């Protein structure tokens, strides 16, 4: 089991530049195999610009970790498409394609990671992407262990599988910015208010239950996916990389606990218990068990 690699997913939230830099300085020291970098949510965010992300990638590459640049999930304008094209032509780093447009720009030319938003739900689609140059795919957040096992059992081609194992679930993307809407601002004049919410802006139901988190044009779950207790139930073959999604606090402690659990220096139950203290909200794992995503199925 210790052969499993750990990846740090791209930062979903908008943080000040100094904080982002400091965050990745700690990531460079953490027991991570891969670090995903880049702004995937909103092209208006500018604390780090494309060149800054590339420079950061160069810095982090010297730590010996694999660096992957993640492309924006929702592209609306020609500048968005141009930025994606530049990313795919960076010439140095692997790119995570989060839109089929990015796949088109890299197919048969450079290897790439097929991101979760490509909606790859069956082995046939995976084979297509592998033929185009995908070297890794990221499992859609809503896929169950059973469906993943069916894919892994069926396929007979090389493709690494990466599974989101920890973090708030990315659930939806929109043309509309919900953080701006909350402040009754238009997206084009949003005042970058999302920078005030380092773990997103919590949305509750009218009976006070935390439900979702608003993060600009993205909506995340409030509950935090945690599969550390499920490591024993991973499909017998397939998953090679576990992704941990950044959160405002304690991300690298979570990474360390995952590493410890994978290495067997703590039990999965102990790791789950320790991580529960580090989470911004209660845990969930329903999708993994073929249920509503917000459900928590006890091991």
């Amino acid at each position, binding site marked *: 089991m210790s052969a499993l690699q750990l990846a740090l997913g791209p930062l979903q939230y908008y943080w000040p530049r100094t904080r982002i830099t400091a965050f990745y300085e700690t990531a460079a020291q953490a027991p991570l195999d891969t670090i995903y970098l880049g702004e995937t949510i909103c092209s208006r965010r500018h604390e780090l610009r494309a060149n800054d992300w590339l420079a950061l990638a160069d810095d982090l590459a010297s730590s010996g970790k694999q660096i992957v640049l993640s492309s924006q999930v929702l592209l*609306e304008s020609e500048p968005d*498409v141009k930025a994606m094209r530049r990313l795919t032509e960076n010439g140095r780093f692997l790119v995570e394609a989060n*839109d089929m447009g990015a796949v088109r720009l890299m197919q048969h030319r450079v290897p790439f990671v097929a991101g979760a938003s490509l*909606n790859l739900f069956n082995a046939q*689609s995976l084979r297509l992407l592998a033929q185009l140059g995908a070297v890794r795919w990221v499992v859609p957040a809503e896929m169950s262990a059973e469906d993943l096992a069916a894919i892994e059992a069926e396929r007979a081609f090389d493709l690494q599988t990466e599974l989101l194992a920890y973090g708030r679930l990315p*659930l939806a993307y929109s043309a509309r910015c919900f953080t701006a809407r909350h402040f009754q601002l238009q997206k084009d004049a949003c005042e970058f208010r999302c920078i005030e919410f380092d773990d997103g802006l919590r949305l*509750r139901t009218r009976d006070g239950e935390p439900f*979702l988190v608003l993060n600009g044009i993205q909506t995340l779950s409030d509950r935090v996916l945690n599969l550390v207790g499920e490591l024993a139930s991973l499909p017998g073959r397939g998953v090679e990389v576990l992704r941990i999604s950044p959160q405002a606090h304690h991300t690298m402690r979570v990474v360390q606990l995952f590493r410890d659990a994978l290495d067997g220096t703590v039990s999965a139950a102990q790791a789950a218990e320790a991580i529960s203290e580090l989470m911004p909200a209660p845990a969930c794992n329903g999708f993994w068990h*073929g249920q509503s995503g917000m459900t928590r199925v006890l091991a």
Partner: protein
Amino acid sequence: MSVTKQIELVCPAGSLPALRSAVDHGADCVYVGFRDETNARNFAGLNFDEAGLAEGLRYAHRAGAKVFVALNTYPQSANWARWTRALDRAADLGVDAVIMADPALMDYARRTHPQLRLHLSVQGSATNHEAINFYHEHFGIQRAVLPRVLALPQIRHVVANTPVQIEVFGFGGLCVMVEGRCALSAYATGVSPNCDGACSPAKAVRWEQTPRGMEVRLNSVLIDRFDPGERAGYPTLCKGRFDVDGHTYYAFEDPASLNALELLPELLRAGVRAIKIEGRQRSPAYVAEVTRVWRRALDACLADSEGFRPSPGSMSALAQLSEGQTHTLGAYDRPWK
């Protein structure tokens, strides 16, 4: 700028009577689905079996209208054959096009039924010309339906950069999230638009009169609460009222329908080749009325796009059919974002 005369009105049908309504009131094309999770309106009592589709095809083709079949959800490895069988069925019946989202299913269609016309569904989440051209190069799609996220200049840009015909939504329920990239329903109810073909399903809805008002839940999640006399709409998850930082409001979208009628001349000038009406879950009477209003507007606009203004009668007729009786331009209008 010359305005294309080739623009199709694509209307929804969840039943044979609705299909006849659409055809009778001037739809160029009607889109339908089978009675299972192979399409994105997988609701009880809705959709077509093979015999119904065959009859619908006869009816539409006699009137010179086309029939498209939506196979626009994502098959999984364990149930892959259900989608390919549905596709074979549609092809064998002689449908005019299939509307799909899954790349492997498109690949299967291209190999198995090379003559079949393929459309990229809105569920494919293709918002830019690079993505649309990807599906064109690999699978030969001839049309793409754009997600309801682009403003008009962005639509113009897409049209100018792809050989694929572009279809946009003109009227009906408004997904505020990018279609194909929304798992909110799956998160709350376990029913996934992507894989099960339904959002905020009726089986998960629970209404309850409480001292605080009429409450409506999806699964266990409170979507909204209504005061006496307040209009209580269907609890689609993203149309609920929630609390953010002490304020209770429609955090995602007010209950309103998309209505782009006033943008018709601009959509024509942009080179859009088809206008889609949402609403396969709606009644034949609804389909009849929306089709009638849009047919008349489209003809008027094609005759004189410079002078076209939606008539007050058509706007009020559409408002009557709109969710909350109000409508919005949605993402076509930048301030909405």
